[in-house]
């Protein structure tokens, strides 16, 4: 498949860097960024998670003056960055197991506190490591209000093992374990969970959602998270070209459509209450988002559009827009 090669991005959301005051420019625009996750790793072309991880950690590195330790759950991000004996990490980085990143981070934070050190801790994992197998450890870290920022890079399935369904997989999505077969192809409606809302239910100081489609918004949220102590949660939407069947050069576009259609609302919450939301500037129909991804091909098979099922997904997006007041942002 031939793809358009873009050497730079244009548009109102990205071109502003050179026009902004130096203080308000993105961390990523600076030659002094730490490149916490540096080049040479084995992520797929267009990997949203690789992008998200570098942006998050570079912002966290700037916010902490480089006094940062990273704990990583097993998953794509761990595997593609550390093929022995190489490592793409330019930060102190610790991988233990799939399900325990939050607990290991608690241990690191406890060690730092015990030693009187000001070093901060970020734990990170994919949606499977965070919302499924690691959820008990995550909830424990939240309720103890341990001084950890946990970042979930949500690509909506178990990509490292070959695209199996997770509790973050949206309805209708085809995965290796929710095949596009039978009368109800793809993932089921009514399953899955909303991790940011569950995080908020713990009453922790800070919860936010972010997307690789909005760099400034993401960096601001990391900075806000690092300004406070206690348990914090950042849920970043990161398209996976491999698992979603989207073009490698469409990662940002797909991520932006997820935000603009309302399926992935961007908001911040403090102590269990939503305090800010990022308004949708150009609302898009869910169908525009679905059409770019082969995991939803069955909705458009044989030239027919599965209007009924798409409407059910649209209803979820509409409810998000209403619930989080995403059109006005107030």
């Amino acid at each position, binding site marked *: 498949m031939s793809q358009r090669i873009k050497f730079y991005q244009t548009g109102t959301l990205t071109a502003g860097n050179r026009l902004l005051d130096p203080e308000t420019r993105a961390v990523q625009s600076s030659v002094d960024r730490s490149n916490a996750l540096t080049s040479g790793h084995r992520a797929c072309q267009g990997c949203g998670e690789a992008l998200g991880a570098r942006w998050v950690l570079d912002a966290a590195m700037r916010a902490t003056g480089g006094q940062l330790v990273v704990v990583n759950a097993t998953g794509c991000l761990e595997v593609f960055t550390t093929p022995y004996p190489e490592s793409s990490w330019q*930060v*102190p980085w*610790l991988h233990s197991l799939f399900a325990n990143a939050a*607990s290991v981070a608690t241990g690191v934070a*406890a*060690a730092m506190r*015990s030693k009187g050190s000001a070093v901060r801790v970020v734990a990170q994992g994919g949606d499977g490591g965070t919302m499924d197998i690691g959820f008990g450890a995550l909830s*424990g870290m939240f309720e103890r209000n341990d001084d950890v920022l946990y970042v979930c890079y949500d690509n909506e399935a178990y990509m490292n093992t070959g695209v199996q369904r997770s509790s973050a997989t949206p309805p209708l999505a085809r995965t290796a374990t929710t095949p596009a077969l039978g009368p109800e192809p793809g993932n089921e409606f009514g399953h899955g969970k909303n991790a940011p809302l569950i995080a908020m239910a713990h009453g922790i100081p800070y919860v936010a959602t972010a997307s690789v489609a909005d760099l400034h918004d993401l960096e601001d949220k990391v900075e806000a998270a690092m300004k406070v102590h206690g348990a914090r949660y950042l849920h970043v939407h990161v398209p996976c070209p491999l698992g979603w069947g989207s073009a490698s050069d469409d990662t940002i576009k797909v991520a932006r459509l997820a935000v603009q259609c309302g399926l992935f609302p961007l908001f911040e919450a403090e102590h269990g209450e939503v305090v800010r939301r990022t308004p949708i500037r150009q609302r898009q129909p869910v169908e525009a988002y679905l059409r770019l991804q082969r995991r939803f091909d069955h909705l458009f098979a044989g030239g027919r559009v599965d209007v009924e099922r798409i409407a059910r997904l649209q209803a979820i997006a509409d409810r998000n827009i209403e619930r989080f007041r995403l059109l006005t942002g107030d």
Partner: protein
Amino acid sequence: MLKQIEGSRGMAEAIALCRPEVICAYPITPQTHIVEALGELVKSGSLTPCEFINVESEFSALSVAIGASAAGARAYTATSSQGLLFMAEALYNASGLGLPIVMTLGNRAIGAPINIWNDHSDAMAMRDAGWIQLFARDNQEAADLHIQAFRLAEALSCPVMVCVDGFILTHAFERVDVPTQGEVDAFLPRYEPVQVIDPADPMTIGAMVGPDAFAEVRWLAHHKQLRALEIIPEIASEFEQRFGRRSGGLLRPYRTDGAETIVVAMGSVNGTIEVVVDAMRAGGVPIGALDLCTFRPFPAAAVRDALRGARRVIVVEKNLALGMGGVLASDVRMALRGEPADVQTVVHTVVAGLGGRAITQASLGRVFAEGHAGKLGELHMLDLDWGVVEREVARMSENRRSGPTASNVLRDVGPSMRRIG
């Protein structure tokens, strides 16, 4: 300082003297009193600086210890039974990462059927996880082994599990000599990690290793265990010099000179065994005992030396490896291989004390006498009620839907636990 205290309290005070910087606790019987006492010492300010973290599972307890240890803190936790199995994945991870965590295991049976009482099934299930496993014979040794364990763990950068018999040691009040802070400080230097996660020197810990190097990394972990065989006696010897009492080490022969039969066991049952040996020696029977303090690494050469000359070895062990027999007896048999054919020793397995069943002097005396007389089979279940077993086997063969075995056996045995004691 001499104190008449509960075993758990003695261990907690010894652990506190080791100045752990992070302690994580999740309750499971019979380990609870240890972490409760430590929590009290931290909360009252007598153990400081130390972070005491109440976690949501054993899996997280060890995971928190992993993070703390990797960040350069002296880390401690404790568990038992199901808790050890729930943290199984993290056990392998801690040893694979070379983190010198010390953990107390209050030995307890594993279900189903659920059972809170003592045996060694938990420790045996995790024998290949890369942890050093030490077994305490009494509460003094339980306390002392923890002080040695931190020293050993940090010398090798390898986790150490101190195994103490649940209830029999954890809940028993005995005299314990608790050392002073100065004595422990002189014996146990500050923790200097061989690897630490630190922004001043960023490193990647826990990278993926493929077929090109995995075997070498695993061998190096085995090498560490072999090194422990040399270091454990050195530490025990230095401990004896400083504290004036023998604790730890690889193993302890008891009246094995001229013994034709030697009984091998681990943990608190050695006290009972030695009383029985004394009585049989008084009756002219050439019998001795071997208390194995270090189970992993398995001190095969030392076991072989200690058993040399014996015609019969009776291994008393508190576990039944289903489909096999006894774990310890298998290791003892392995240790005895390589002896000349004319000195082949017969090794008997005596499985005893499962799920807390009392191991009495009378039963041991009977089985040792049978063993010494050459009348013992290869695998003997001490005080097993064969009638109960046979009736359930019959029920199962008569009726496909014979019901849960545990319930059937309990109904058969009757309402009281009259067989204990």
